[in-house]
């Protein structure tokens, strides 16, 4: 059974590959990942509310016309364009603001704000919209019935409905017709101890990602130092995404 042997060989090779990758990560990580996030949690350990993932966007550093974060998100999560923007999935988008009085313009990325009190979670009839203990707001597509009430409730237009059949999804980002989706903070990367794809892609350093509950984390330090705001702060939703320089 030659076929079987090659299978086993492949299996071994992959196993070795992975072990070395893990080993390498373990050795290099403390140095390389220092500026990203805290150490990765073991795979069999559940997330806890001791951590709250958050993001700080410095709109002063965000360039008008630059959409590297948007592109990185599309590549990472396998979002494809249909040619009809009104039904395209948009997990992160670039928004340009112009002050009506002063004419001052600002550019910034808008994404799911990962509220501590998310309206989408409140209104979801089945509980498919939920907030993970570590503050990441997700859609459990297994029980999403596609009613779109969360899209009605979201103050940030952060959610998209999948209007067509999708094939060849990324294994880490399952998505399918008839369900609602939104930015996951690249939860699959975060669980591995990495930053979201958009943050990694931003050369300008306009985005900082980290644990807002850890006073030592970069994001906490920055939030202490600079003046930041929440979009539609009047709603009191306690957002996981903060903006600086609007």
């Amino acid at each position, binding site marked *: 059974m030659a076929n079987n042997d090659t299978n086993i060989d492949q299996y071994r090779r992959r196993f070795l590959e992975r072990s070395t990758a893990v080993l390498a990560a373990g050795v290099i990580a403390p140095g390389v990942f220092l500026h990203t996030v805290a150490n990765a949690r073991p795979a069999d350990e559940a997330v806890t509310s001791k951590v709250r993932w958050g993001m700080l966007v410095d709109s002063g550093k965000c360039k008008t016309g630059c959409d590297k974060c948007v592109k990185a998100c599309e590549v990472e999560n396998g979002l494809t364009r*249909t040619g*009809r*923007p*009104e*039904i*395209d*999935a*948009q997990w992160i*988008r*670039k*928004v*340009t*603001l*112009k*002050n*009506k*009085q002063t004419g001052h313009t600002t550019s910034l990325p*808008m994404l799911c704000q990962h509220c501590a009190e998310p*309206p989408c*979670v*409140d*209104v*979801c*009839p*089945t*509980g*498919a919209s939920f907030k993970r203990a570590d503050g990441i707001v997700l859609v459990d597509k297994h*029980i*999403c*019935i*596609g*009613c*779109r*009430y969360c*899209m*009605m*409730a*979201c*103050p*940030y*237009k952060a*959610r*998209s*409905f*999948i*209007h*067509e*059949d999708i094939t060849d999804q990324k294994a880490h980002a399952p998505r399918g*017709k*008839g*369900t*609602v989706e939104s930015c996951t903070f690249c939860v699959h990367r975060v669980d591995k101890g990495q930053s979201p794809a958009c943050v990694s892609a931003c050369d300008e350093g306009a985005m900082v990602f980290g644990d807002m509950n850890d006073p030592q984390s970069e994001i906490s330090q920055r939030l202490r130092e600079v003046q930041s705001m929440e*979009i*539609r702060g009047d*709603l009191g939703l306690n957002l996981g995404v903060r903006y600086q320089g*609007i």
Partner: protein
Amino acid sequence: MKYPVCREIEGKSSAYVALLVILGGLVALGLGAAIYMEHQGHHVTGMNNQIVWGMPHVFAVFLIVAASGALNVASISSVFGKVVYKPLAPLSGLLAIALLVGGLVVLVLDLGHPDRLIVAMTNYNFKSIFAWNIFLYNGFLAVVAVYLWMLMERRMNTYTKAAGMVAFVWRLILTTGTGSIFGFLVARQFYDAAIMAPMFIVMSFSFGLAVFILVLFVSFWGTGRPMGEVIVDRMRSLLSLFVLAVLFLVAIFHVTNLYATEHHGIESFILRDGGIYTMMFWVGYVFVGSVLPLLLLNFSGSSRSEVVAVSAGLVILGGLAMMYVIIIGGQAYPLVMFPGYEVVSDFSDGVVNVYRPSLPEILLGMGGVAFALTIVAFGVKVLRFLPLSLADKDIDPHYRPDTAGGATASGA
């Protein structure tokens, strides 16, 4: 005065068969549209990521609101003890069930995953008004079914009042729940108002009664059963009162909004600059759906059943227009995320969202209406829902032959 009796209709006339065939055809078209939408995905509809609820929701919410209102006549008879309405109670209950089922079918078939209906029935998030509504809708069907049982089986008649009371309270809560679907949306400028719930309740009175009047009159004309002036006049004044009440609450809603600077944007959009939505509001709802019927009902100098029926039809059209304004218009106006800023993006930020209703959506909505009417048409054939006579001498406790003149049986 004779005890009012309901009887099945014979249901063998070619007109009846034709009615069933037409309704069946519409239901089939609606079902086909739903299958098409589900198979292709929602990109074949006019709905998109900006206008997430469209035509199906206009029809569904209208039907659901009208359903609870259709129960009014039964409530007036059983809860408030008005004898004249007693023979109408069974039809009122049947229509309530039929309209709700029709609306729910549309709502469910529009879901991204109608196949997961069981998920919606087994997974509840009790903070969601939507989840509560699932309970309220199913409960309403059960409560009204029990009420009909008490009403229609003689040995159960003693419980009619109690069951009618439960059904009445239930329907008020139900419409509160439906209104709150919009009232609880903090994100959107046009919703997020507590007045949504009472406004929906009053709307249900008006729209539900309008549908009831049309169904009642048409079935009486069709079966040639006698209908007197008393009932027509009662329907006339009741509808007139409800239409006025809705107009009042809608006015309050907009005036309150106009007082707050924060809401000036959305109000000027709906009332002045919104194009189709402004038209729908002023021409559709205010003129065709309210002013015209009020004039017809009160100043046409006639209380003939045809006039009342036409008015009821206009109220229904106005109601659909109002639903369109609330549901689509409310979404078309851009979300205000950055007050004081002009917002531009490649994701329709800061612009009025465009919605073009597609044929499948409309067919699905019409299919729901047809399905509700099919239930009624079939129901009156197999069970005793429809009164044999609504002639004055049969229903009016104060009837005296000498004063009634030649007015009896004028409607037939």
